[in-house]
């Protein structure tokens, strides 16, 4: 954690808007902005005047245009944070925003913690005492969400890959460090070639992960919405209808075996990640599988649950159990198959839950607009906060990877400069720490555990 490095984040609400504002704050803001911005003649600026708008483009490292932007520099101390601030006004939408943020990180900015701009504003005397409590609340509540989200993410496949790289680095470190702390034990020293090849493959891995994360294949973002219901109640049809009407943003990686299908849909600018159990093969023990337990598991960390009931069939014991189990959750009840004669009385359900009920039919499209409005309103009225706040969590992974890749490069340089391995291990420490920051584990404890569990040492 640093007190006065340069931070960046999306300053406007996430989602699809006309424009989005990305803010940089800290001593390196201008320098970073200079390194990515060109004017309409595609020339770099050596100087920005404070409080003037500049029109131009953001270029990536390959000199490709990411977006057409307006840029404004505000000189310290008359800014929100009382630090040098640069704002980049780009087009709304996730792709340009994410790519610009990534680029700023590559140039040395760190992704701001929740509430960090406001925190700096306070610490630098910009906002008054009365607001201090509000700042603390902001930090703690937003961070709780983010922390929960990153824990969720830790189970994702990207995290698993990151962890694999990290474990390999820990192993490498342990092997180098053990011979430093125990030079007289009969432990084989690492050969420089082996260290080099492991560093190179780790760097390759980081690059691949960044590449695929960049293509959006591994994006894990959005409002986590789970569709549950008994077989044949119309779950897949609902999902298909939502996907058909809204453009699907990302589809899950094909070929991975899982019993849940994920789709990303963009509902009026809100990114929604829908999980459907339709991926489960229809077998005879299906009912058992989609029992109460399964629902409980699937809905545990959902932001929103769409419960489908077949309104043409009377309520069964299992339906009631599920309703009771979910009574503290954000849940929307869809009485599906409204095109058929009703066998369920809406009032019976109201007795069990205070949740909103919408009548739908996947045959004639009844209620679909209402469902979308409902989701949209939930988000914009603040009733649902994405547990994976857009632009935060997966960007954290990217930030970690970008920094790890940088440190891996430094480790290789150290090796090429014929420095001894204990010098290389200082760089490897940084790699591990860059990758480990998400979980906040301590390197020293892990390293010492590793050393003593793998090597027989001591008098």
């Amino acid at each position, binding site marked *: 954690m640093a007190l006065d490095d340069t931070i960046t984040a999306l300053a406007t609400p996430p989602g699809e808007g006309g424009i989005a504002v990305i803010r940089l704050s800290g001593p390196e803001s201008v320098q970073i902005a200079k390194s990515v911005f060109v004017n309409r003649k595609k020339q770099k600026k050596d100087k920005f005047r404070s409080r003037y708008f500049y029109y131009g483009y953001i270029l990536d490292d390959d000199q490709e245009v990411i977006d057409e932007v307006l840029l404004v520099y505000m000189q310290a101390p008359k800014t929100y944070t009382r630090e040098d601030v640069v704002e980049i006004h780009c087009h709304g939408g996730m792709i340009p925003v994410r790519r610009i943020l990534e680029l700023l990180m590559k140039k040395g900015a760190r992704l701001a913690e929740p509430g960090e701009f406001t925190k700096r504003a306070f610490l630098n005397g910009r906002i008054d005492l009365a607001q201090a409590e509000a700042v603390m*609340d902001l930090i*703690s509540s937003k961070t709780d969400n983010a922390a929960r989200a990153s824990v969720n993410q830790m189970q994702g496949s990207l995290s698993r890959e990151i962890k694999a790289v990290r474990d390999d680095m820990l192993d490498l470190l342990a092997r180098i460090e053990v011979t430093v702390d125990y*030079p007289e034990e009969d432990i084989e020293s690492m050969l420089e070639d082996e260290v080099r090849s492991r560093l190179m493959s780790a760097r390759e891995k980081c690059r691949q992960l960044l590449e695929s994360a960049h293509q959006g294949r591994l994006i894990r973002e959005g409002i986590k919405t789970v569709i549950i219901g008994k077989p044949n109640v119309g779950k897949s049809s609902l999902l298909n209808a939502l996907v058909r009407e809204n453009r699907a943003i990302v589809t899950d990686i094909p070929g991975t075996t899982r019993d849940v299908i994920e789709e990303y849909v963009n509902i009026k600018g809100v990114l929604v990640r829908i999980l459907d159990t339709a991926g489960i093969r229809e077998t005879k023990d299906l009912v058992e599988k989609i029992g109460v337990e399964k629902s409980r598991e699937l809905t545990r960390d959902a932001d929103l649950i769409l419960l489908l009931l077949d309104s043409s069939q009377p309520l069964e014991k299992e339906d009631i159990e599920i309703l009771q189990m979910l009574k503290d959750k954000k849940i929307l009840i869809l009485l599906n198959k409204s095109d058929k004669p009703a066998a369920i009385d809406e009032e019976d359900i109201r007795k069990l839950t205070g949740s909103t009920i919408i009548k739908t039919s996947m045959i004639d499209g009844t209620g679909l607009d209402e469902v979308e409005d409902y989701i949209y309103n939930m988000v914009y009225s603040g009733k649902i906060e994405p547990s994976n706040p857009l632009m935060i969590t997966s960007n954290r992974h990217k930030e970690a990877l970008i920094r790890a890749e940088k440190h891996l490069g430094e480790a290789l340089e150290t090796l090429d400069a014929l420095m001894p391995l*204990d*010098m290389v291990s200082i760089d490897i420490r940084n790699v591990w720490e860059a990758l480990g920051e998400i979980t*906040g584990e301590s390197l020293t404890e892990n390293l*010492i555990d590793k050393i003593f569990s793998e090597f027989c040492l001591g008098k």
Partner: protein
Amino acid sequence: MEFYAGNYDIIVTGAGHAGCEAALAAARMGMKTLVVALNLDAVALMACNPSIGGTSKGHLVREVDALGGEMGINIDKTFIQIRMLNTGKGPAVHSLRAQADKKRYQAAMKLTLESQENLDLRQGEVVEIRTKGGRVCGVKLDTGEYYTCRAVIVASGVYLKSRVIIGEYSINSGPNGLFPANRLSGNLKDLGFRLMRFKTGTPARVNKRSLDFSKMIEQPGHTNIYPFSFLNKAIEREQVPCWLTYTNERTHEIIRQNLHRSPMYSGEIKGIGARYCPSIEDKVVRFSDKESHQVFIEPEGLDTNEMYVQGLSSSLPVEVQIAVYRTVPGMERVEIMRPAYAIEYDCIDSTQLKLSLESREVEGLFMAGQINGSSGYEEAAAQGIIAGINAVQYIRQEEPLILDRSDAYIGVLIDDLVTKGTPEPYRMMTSRAEYRLLLRQDNADMRLTEKAYRIGLAGKERYDRLCYKQERIQKELERLRNTIISPSDFVNQYLLGKSSSPLKSGIQMYNLLKRPEISFSDLIRLGQIGEEIEPEIQEQLEIHVKYEGYIQKQLKQVEQFKKMEKVKIPPDMDYSQVKGLKIESVQKLQKLQPENLGQASRISGVSPADISVLMVYLEKRRREKRNNEA
């Protein structure tokens, strides 16, 4: 029976490695000091291995020396072998280690204590620390003496309720047949300390006459290296070798057959042992696929035939020990003089201490050494000198000397103990230091001597030497920058011989030295710089030039680190009043009472968000206070 026996400024209980440094520091800083020890024949006793230093521990000794401590000087007087470890690696991890003549080490240290102005030694057992209004006011001895004082330093080592275990046999005893201290534990408990039970062990001592060195590998010392103390130049002295041999399958077989008789495995020992100091039975069980383990035979001194058997520490019954030892090549007819044993003892939860090593429970009560859960002579000495200094600062009502993680290994050691606590006896390791490229053993004086000089511990001689060294380095660096080496046949021929590319035009000596294949001695051989430059200055120049970029990088990290350390947390902080902290963080912070934001951030489970919230809260408090004053 109790009688008033006198008044001191500072009383130190225990005259082991921590106690000696604490007492000497206190007396040298002008305090009337008393050391009470169970047995004055055990002053500076080396109860386990006969060596001082080693990886990271060597750093600690150099740091203690740089502060004006005694350990470095004392081992320089009494070593019988000295080595610089890790010379094939980077300068950050070079470490000195010396074999001591144990008896001479003790005698030299005892004489130093005895000769020290302001310092008295007294044999006896401290059974009670007296307090008045939460503050230390005196100590009572078992024989009835009551001394008054203003500060107490507890450096009781492994003696609190200690118990020695050898197989099925056990006895309440300190190391080496010395008395245990059975009463102080209860008193500490009453004063509010949480006690833990740790375990350590030592191998057998054997008669040199019964060993066959022809079956072992000789381990000689190194010549021409600087010793531990910055006050000394290289010491020419005849050195004594150590010997290396190995266990084998038969050794392991006997151990496996007798495991049920080991108190570790039968549950007889309840204390927590350290992973880095395993008994041979531990090694055989945990690393069962390893076919042999190293055994080092080290002399205990020049006036004795006793040899220390490093690698074969054990708590197996004596007859099993004999059988095990006799399987090792060169030890077939070994005669054990003192059997190996395990020892259990009471120590405190070190998170009850402040970074100054003063306890949070009682004002004026300081703790140092194994009582804090550490292990090792050097770790003890390091805490001893800091406790001694800070007891003095406490009496003077001045700011304590706190070394942080970027100042010294001592800082890492104390911060780890105080902030994280330790679940097993704590050993220093280079891997624990984040900024180890800066915390080298060669620059301990440049890191610490001035601090110690300012508070009146390090003497004028030390300080002058430091100033001279720094001046020399600056001057010579300038010379390296200003001297141009021109291409000539001689120069280029020489460079080619070193597989270094020949010069096309003139080059600063500074830049030539930057080449990995060129060392300082090459510059001398090129005739461009005089041999008159002292070896320790050459070393500094070489490190400075070759590692400049890396050193800069670590300095930058340290700058960030220091910013957090500078944000002080007031001692009366009530964390339950801080809105937005997680409940478990409140509990941890309340318990550990960190002294600054950096320390708070290292408490396990305290998240960056908690730190952010704290930061805002502290700023709010500061502004409120300012408003109230205005």
